[in-house]
């Protein structure tokens, strides 16, 4: 038999195992609990550790600690729990600790609609923690892609020493569909950069040509300082501009110079389109359905599906919308990614199809927007 029935949350857990994740700390919350349930069973089987913490603040702290100890580490949560994790996500960004945070979005704010899907955390995933910092956010559209993106999330976290957010939604997390997982040999697994310099030479935050300093786990005989304060190359607090500015420049540069690796997207029939639909996550499923229907009716509709939401793929969106008068952005919020699209292509080109009531954007709603969008300038 090729392919089996699998849930999105389960695929996330299996992707984590495949990527080498050996530590999970979390606190149960619908619709992310299934990830913890699978990992509670699976991690001990592969020599990993699972721990249920007292809350999400502690969960995120434990994940950071495990990563510093050398383990690939992850947590999974949803809206209210994601809010609680923000402070420590900032700590991970400041201290450049690789980790993966899964947010299976449900309708909010607050406890909102626990069992209903949403894409309301798009901006929170970017700016939820205070201060300027780079972040990588991936959003899968299928069960198989959830597996793949979880692996990619770990790879990027380790490669660039950064927290990576896997921004799922209840629809993808709870959905079961037929999937065929890749064989273990076909999966690329990336390890964090290490070094063979002696302990007394090691600088945990050294400016290296790659912009990603080697990271040695605690307990290996290398002593260094980790702090949430701005720090020098050895990790000790500093207020010197000649140490702060290079750090800020480096952490942004290490992401920006690797956009080719980080940006995941799929462009379909953009070239001779008269209108383009830009979608992500579960809503991309509705959008694709609508795009097929519109094409069957003779509309020339391009489709751009974004897998990486942050850093926002500015050039990709810019190119897709270059010769086009209308861009439609359907999403399960009242226009969050649409704000970014508007910033890049101009406000007048963008039609938002937003919904924040816990229901999916339907193909019909996207199709209506396509029809309206095409006729608007004819």
């Amino acid at each position: 038999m090729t392919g089996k029935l699998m849930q999105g949350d389960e695929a996330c857990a299996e992707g984590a195992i495949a990527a080498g994740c050996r530590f999970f700390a979390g606190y149960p919350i619908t619709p992310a609990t299934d990830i913890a349930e699978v990992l509670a069973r699976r991690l001990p089987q592969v020599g990993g550790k699972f721990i249920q913490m007292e809350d999400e603040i502690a969960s995120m702290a434990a994940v950071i600690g495990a990563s510093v100890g050398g383990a690939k580490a992850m947590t999974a949560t949803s809206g209210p729990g994601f809010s609680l994790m923000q402070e420590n996500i900032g700590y991970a960004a400041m201290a450049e600790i690789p980790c993966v945070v899964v947010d299976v979005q449900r309708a909010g704010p607050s406890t909102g609609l626990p069992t209903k899907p949403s894409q309301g955390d798009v901006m929170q995933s970017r700016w939820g923690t205070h201060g300027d910092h780079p972040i990588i956010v991936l959003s899968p559209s299928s069960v198989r892609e959830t597996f793949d993106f979880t692996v990619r999330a770990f790879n990027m976290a380790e490669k660039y020493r950064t927290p990576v957010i896997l921004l799922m939604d209840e629809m993808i997390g709870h959905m079961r569909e037929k999937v065929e997982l890749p064989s273990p040999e076909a999966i690329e697994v990336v390890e964090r950069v290490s070094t063979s310099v002696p302990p007394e030479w090691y600088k945990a935050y050294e400016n290296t040509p790659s912009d990603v300093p080697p990271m040695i786990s605690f307990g290996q005989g290398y002593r260094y300082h980790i702090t949430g304060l701005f720090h020098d190359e050895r990790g000790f607090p500093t207020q010197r501009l000649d140490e702060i500015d290079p750090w800020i420049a480096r952490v942004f540069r290490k992401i920006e110079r690797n956009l080719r690796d980080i940006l995941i997207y799929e462009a379909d029939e953009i070239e001779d389109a008269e209108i383009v639909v830009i979608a992500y996550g579960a809503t991309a499923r509705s959008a694709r359905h609508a795009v097929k229907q519109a094409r069957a009716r003779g509309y020339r509709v391009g489709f751009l599906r974004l897998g990486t939401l942050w850093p926002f793929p500015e050039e990709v969106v810019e190119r897709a919308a270059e010769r086009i008068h209308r861009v439609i952005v359907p999403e399960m919020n009242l226009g969050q990614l649409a704000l970014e699209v508007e910033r890049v292509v101009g406000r007048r080109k963008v039609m938002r199809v937003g919904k924040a009531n816990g229901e999916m954007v339907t193909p019909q709603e996207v199709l209506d927007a396509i029809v309206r969008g095409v006729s608007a300038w004819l």
Partner: protein
Amino acid sequence: MSERYEVRLAGKGGQGMILAGIILAEAAILDGKNAAQTQSYGPEARGGASRSEVVISDGEIDYPKVTQADILLCMSQEACDRYFHDLKQHGLLIADAVHVERMPTSRAVVVPLTQWAEEATGRRITASVVALGFLAGLTGLVSRQAMEAAVRAHVPPGTEEINLRALAVGFEQAEQFIRSQSK
């Protein structure tokens, strides 16, 4: 676009609608088809509206939810009132006579699923599996062999035999129903 077949299983929390959806999707996959199963339910563990949706196709499934159902199973009055308008023009409505009194159409197939379950297994909870057997028997949407394997794979351990009996009752009643219609 390849043919989509959309099934909505609706009732109350605790009736096993979501598990029924999982079983149906698994059976479709065992038959070599593509399937996606989604669900919608409230925060409560029992009571409240609960529904499961299964889209079956030979090709790729983009939108995983029901747009217009080919089959609607109603295990509560509320489900029937609420979802009938999403049924295709010549779609099949199966309603459990034990739970649904007011029918929105004279074309509904109204059968006592819960009563059959109680008689066959002594457990009302198996009504969802009886319904699956009846639905599959009536439509041929999935094979009986695949259904049996899917039931075995997904029901709680120790309840396999009871649930297979429930499934068999569903298939038998479907045969009888077809015979009674062709007279």
